[in-house]
């Protein structure tokens, strides 16, 4: 970490001005791009995640840190060749059919995005067919579903079934969440993972894909 102490600190604090200035300094100093990202930004975000899970940071602080990282990434993007930075994995996410709750789903998306996943968000009230259609298009590693109503939970196994019928089930991991959803339910409907909040959603997703 040492080399990027100021950048790390600024990301951690969510100080966008200082962070982008430090970022520019690193770029001007011709540092290796991947090295800046890994040790300058992601390392700081890992620390943010760590502190959040210990209850030392609040959600807005975490999201601000993520935003700071994104602002820094913008500076580096023009320098990147296609394929220079590979996302941790692709996630297709949505709130299931009949369900209009989206705050939890949005939070999960944001956290995953800031952890390096590429997100495609289908919004709310997403029917199984739409999950399937989009999955065919973007070829995600993970299909993530949110349901806040026990009446809409059955749309989860229905979506899993639809993925199966389309021959996609073996190609994707399925993750589910939302207040009425439980670990047991995930087993029952043969989802691959369940997480009770956005923080653990990120670590479960990493585990599913075998990344740290």
């Amino acid at each position, binding site marked *: 970490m040492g080399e990027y102490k100021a950048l790390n600190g600024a990301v951690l604090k969510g100080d966008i001005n200082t962070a982008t200035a430090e970022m520019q300094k690193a770029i001007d100093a011709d540092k290796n791009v991947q090295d800046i990202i890994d040790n300058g930004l992601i390392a700081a975000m890992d620390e943010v995640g760590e502190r959040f899970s210990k209850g030392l940071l609040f959600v807005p602080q975490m999201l601000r840190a993520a935003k700071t990282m994104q602002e820094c990434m913008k500076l580096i993007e023009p320098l990147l060749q296609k394929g220079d930075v590979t996302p941790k994995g692709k996630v297709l996410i949505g709130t299931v059919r009949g369900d209009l709750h989206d705050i939890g789903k949005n939070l999960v998306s944001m956290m995953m995005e800031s952890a390096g996943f590429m997100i495609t968000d289908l919004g709310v009230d997403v029917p199984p067919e739409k999950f399937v259609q989009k999955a065919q298009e973007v070829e995600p590693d993970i299909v993530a579903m949110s349901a806040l109503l026990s009446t809409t939970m*059955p749309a989860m196994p229905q979506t899993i079934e639809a993925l199966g019928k389309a021959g996609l089930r073996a190609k994707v991991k399925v993750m589910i969440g939302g207040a009425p959803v439980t670990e047991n339910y995930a087993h029952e409907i043969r989802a691959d993972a369940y997480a009770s*909040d956005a923080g653990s959603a990120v670590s479960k997703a990493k585990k599913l894909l075998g990344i740290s």
Partner: protein
Amino acid sequence: MKSLNIPTFLPRLKVLNREQALAIHQAALEILEKTGFKMEHPDAHQMLVDAGGKVTNDGRLTLPAYLVEEALKTTPKQIALYDQKGNKTMPLVDGNPFYGTGSDATFTLDLETGQRRRAVLKDVANFARLVDNLENISFAMSMANPDDVPVEDIYVYVFAEMIKNINKPIVFIADSGRDIAKIYEIACLVAGGEEEFQKKPFMLNYSEAISPLRFPQNVMEKLIFCARKKIPICLPSGSNAGGGAPITIAGAMALGIAENLVGLAVHQLTNKGAPFLFGPNVSTLDMKSTVVSYGCPEWSLSQAALADMRDEMYGLPTWAYAGASDAKVMDAQAGAEAMFSIITAMLSRSNLIHDVGFLEYGNTSSLEMVTMANELVAMSRFFTEGIPVNEGTLALDVIERVATGGPGSIFLTDDHTFDYFREAQFLPQLLDRSRYDSWKEAGAMDLYTVCNTEAKRILSEHQVEPKTDEVLNEVDRILKGR
């Protein structure tokens, strides 16, 4: 001493001054005039356009202030809810507070095992029967989203179950225009016809718009249905601070009120004078756990503010919450949070106060919690009734009698004590004040255990006056869809 005729001051909590109230109202109007909203029900959309609403470039609607002010004028300032036998038990007007349970908890704390488990239809029956018996719990909601009924008709089953197990007013949920029609059919059966029902409505619908500023088709279907049939309705949105709305209570309230006003405009354009219960749900999103809290001071504060706005300008009865908690079991936290919201809701004179008995931020219901809340409401009521000051209560003659009565003369033996102790004292039924030894002898029970025992007793002893076989058969027919 000259004879006294002093009106009793009723303690009242005020959290906003007039300028604050007006500013929040103005902000709500500005949201509607400038930001606008998404109205996904085509007829409602048209109705608002015809009345003066403007469609923006991106298809949103904005409303001129006069349209909203007009709706506020035509809405009745009071809603009388009746019980199912036709008695006016809940006059929602001025500062009358009424407490009741909440709706769709996924889980419940099992009365026998104490374990959290998935809720079933029988739980709906148990909560209804308990509430039927509890003196200070005035209305029932389902308290469960049962696992064992057909999902498409879940709210019809739940409503029918309540009809069978309680005679107090019901606050109900429906999914859309389809199931609400069935529920209404059942309600008319109970009341003895549509006309009878409309004369003495015993239920109120709880529907929700979506913050920020979105009005889905199915929600508007219910709103329009209720307006036409004069079924009282409330339409709080999830304008929780930091979740569906800004983190600051003032902004969250402005947004929630704006959303209520849109609902009210559609409602009154559909049927002027139909009853509408005013108020958003402004709780807060906890920034560590990311749960929407059901035990926070923010929610109590926002609804106290709404009651002030009612008194300053709206004049409409308000929707509120209390007696719930974020605790996972009925522990000290549950007691503290329940009492905090119950007493503040009463002191601020909210009108219809729901969610009594929820644990775990609305995910779990508890019969013991409801039982405890019944006592907490009584305690709060004692406090909010203030201190009557008159000759009888000042008791100067008694003081003189005892003070000059010589040795052995004590207040305890004076007739005044006998005459007054029932009204002068709060007499707890569940809260324990026994001396240590007797407490220990009686089993050293904590309040949870006491409430558990009491809930079990009520459920085994209380008989709900049943509906006629004719009504019950018809209800079954409707459930079976024939």
